[in-house]
Structure formats: C-alpha cells, structure tokens
C-alpha cells in the first residue's frame, strides 16, 4: 500500500473526534485506503461521497458559482468533510463535537500534499 496515502489517512484519523478517514478514487467512486469505524461501509461511503462531490461540483460550475473545493455535511450524528487532491477525494467523518476548524485545515493540507 502506498505509504504516502496511508500516512495521510493516519494524520486525519488522529484528530480528536474523527471517527473515519477515507481516500477515494474520485472518478470510479471506489475506496483506495482508509480507516472507518465500520470498514465494511467503505465502498458505500466512497461511492456516495464521490457522487455528492462530483454532482454538486458540476452543478455549481454550470451555475457559474465557481469550482468546488470543499463539501461539508452537518448531521445530527456527526459531520462529513470532502475535499479533493490529485484525483483523490479526502473524506473525513467526525463526531458533532470534533473541532471542525482543525479537521478542515488538516484535510486541506492533505489535499494539497496529494495534488
């Protein structure tokens, strides 16, 4: 397994409150490497995160609202942050009380490193 990618996932997983981190092939919607609370959900998370990011990004672009750089979902049970770097999507899942500023900064750092 690619050490660089594994390190990226580990960097994100170490953030307090983060319950999962996944790198996803953006075009295929398939998981590349990751750590989730339930690893069996990785294919589903990868596919749906990729669908959310790509479709929303395309719609925003068509509406001349710019190029999507980050998609963040807040839900009752936690948050999901998706950003992209080098053909991969970085997906981070965190508890509601996680410091979302730190999650955002580190996810963007990982994205830049992978680009």
């Amino acid at each position: 397994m690619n050490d660089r990618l594994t390190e990226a996932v580990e960097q994100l997983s170490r953030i307090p409150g983060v319950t999962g981190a996944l790198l996803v092939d953006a075009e295929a919607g398939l998981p590349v490497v990751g750590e989730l609370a339930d690893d069996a959900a990785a294919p589903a998370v990868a596919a749906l995160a990729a669908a959310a990011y790509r479709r929303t990004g395309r719609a925003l672009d068509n509406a001349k609202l710019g190029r999507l750089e980050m998609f963040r979902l807040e839900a009752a049970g936690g948050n999901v942050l998706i950003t992209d770097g080098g053909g991969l999507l970085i997906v981070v899942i965190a508890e509601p009380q996680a410091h979302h500023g730190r999650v955002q900064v580190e996810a963007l750092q990982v994205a830049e490193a992978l680009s």
Partner: protein
Amino acid sequence: MSDAGLPDLQRWSEEVARDPAAPAFLSLARAYRKQGRRDAALRICLRALEHQPTHVEGHALLALLYLETGELEKASDEWATVLRLDPDNFDAHRGLGFVYLERGDYEAARRHLESAARVRPGDPAVRDALALANGAVAGVAAGGAAVAGDASAAGVHAPVGDPTRVFEEFLADPNFVGALVLDIRGLVAVSTVAGDGHGGADQLGPVFSEAIEEAARLAGVLGLGAWRGIQLHTDAALIHLSPLGGGYTLVVAGSPNAPPDWMMRTVGRATELGLAFVGV
C-alpha cells in the same frame, strides 16, 4: 414479538398445513418474513386470504411484503383493502401516506397522514411526513412562488409578502452574494441576489437540490441521521444550506473572503427572516 423458536415454527407449520386459514398463518408468515423468507411468507398469506378474504392483519402483512419487494402498487392495493375493512387502520393510512408522498400526490398523502395522526398523535414518522406534505401543499397552493394567498383555501400557511425583498437588509453587506429559500420540490420560493445575479436565481434550485439529495444519502449510509447543514466552498463563494422546516431550505451565499463568523451570523438572521416569510 420475540423470535419464534423451532418448536413454535413447527407447530405453526403443522397447523397451517392442516388448514391454510388457521390463525397460526399470521405468526408463521411473520416469522418467515423476519427470517428473510419473503416468498414463503407471501405464499402463506395469499393462501390464507383465499379462505379468509376479510382478514385485516393478513392484508396488512401482505402490504408490507409487497412493499419490501418494491411492488408499491400491490402494497397500495392491500392497504386500500385494509381500509375498506377497517377505515381507521393506522398502518394502512400511514403506508398510503408515504406511498403518495413518494408519488408526489401531496393532497392524498396529507389526507392519509392526518388520518394516521388522529389514531396515533405521537407517531414521529407520521408527524415528519405530515410536515413534508403540508409544506408541499403550501408550495403548490402558492404557485411555487411566495405571494400573498388565501391560507384558508390551502388549509396551511402560505408565504406572504414580496419574495424579492425578504433578505433585502443584506444587500448593503459587501460579503453578501445572495440568499434563497427553496420549497420542498426544490423550486425557488424566495430570492435576493446581489449584483447581477448568477444566471437567474430560478436556475439555482436544481443545483442545491442535488447537493441536498446526495448529502441525505451519504448521511443515511453513515447512520448520521437527518442533515442539519451543508457548506460548499468554491473559489467564488461560500454557500450554506440549512433546513427551515416544513420542507423549506435556506441557502445563503457569501464571499469566500468573508470573516470566519460571517456565515453563522448571517445564516442566523436569514433563518429568522425566512421563517417569518414562509410562516412555518
């Protein structure tokens, strides 16, 4: 209902084998359904109902079995049969309410869900579905655009006031790009956009509806519950979406260079204005 043990299954099987309409058919069919043996459960129900066509619970179970195999028409037929036999049946009214919601027939959905709510006022699924149906009916009654209307004709709150002026107070803010309220169908009910807009605010409904749809799916697979907010960062804007209630969604867009707390403050104020306008 506790899990059926092997002796129970055997006893029920023997009873049903002797008499397809034996009372045990319901327990046996339910046990098979729980085991994932839907085909067996279906056969048992159908045979029993041939002999007892007025068995309400049998028809209700059959509706669930059809629902699980995606046969919505057949499920609806069974629930309709249940209601002919038992006009106040909660499960049938709830089931039909959800089917009509899915089909977009919000008036019919509302009628059935209100009937279900009368039987069990506290049911949370019925309550939420009714809020959606009411919001949809309000959106239809108002013609998809916020105009002063006869709320009594719709039977629900209809938005009042000029929809282009709801967020007017933000236009003086240099960080403000625009704000919208979408109705349950994803149509723009309210819009205020700074400058020359973005190709017409009406075009933006589908854009954000896609984001909401995908976010809901993702939240579902992760077991995170209902979505509360979506933030989209682009190189041209920072966009925040949040549910307003009654099926409405608030969208606020600002400059990507706005101060960190700008969005939360603006969303808070926009929420007050949006709620006051749609009357939820």
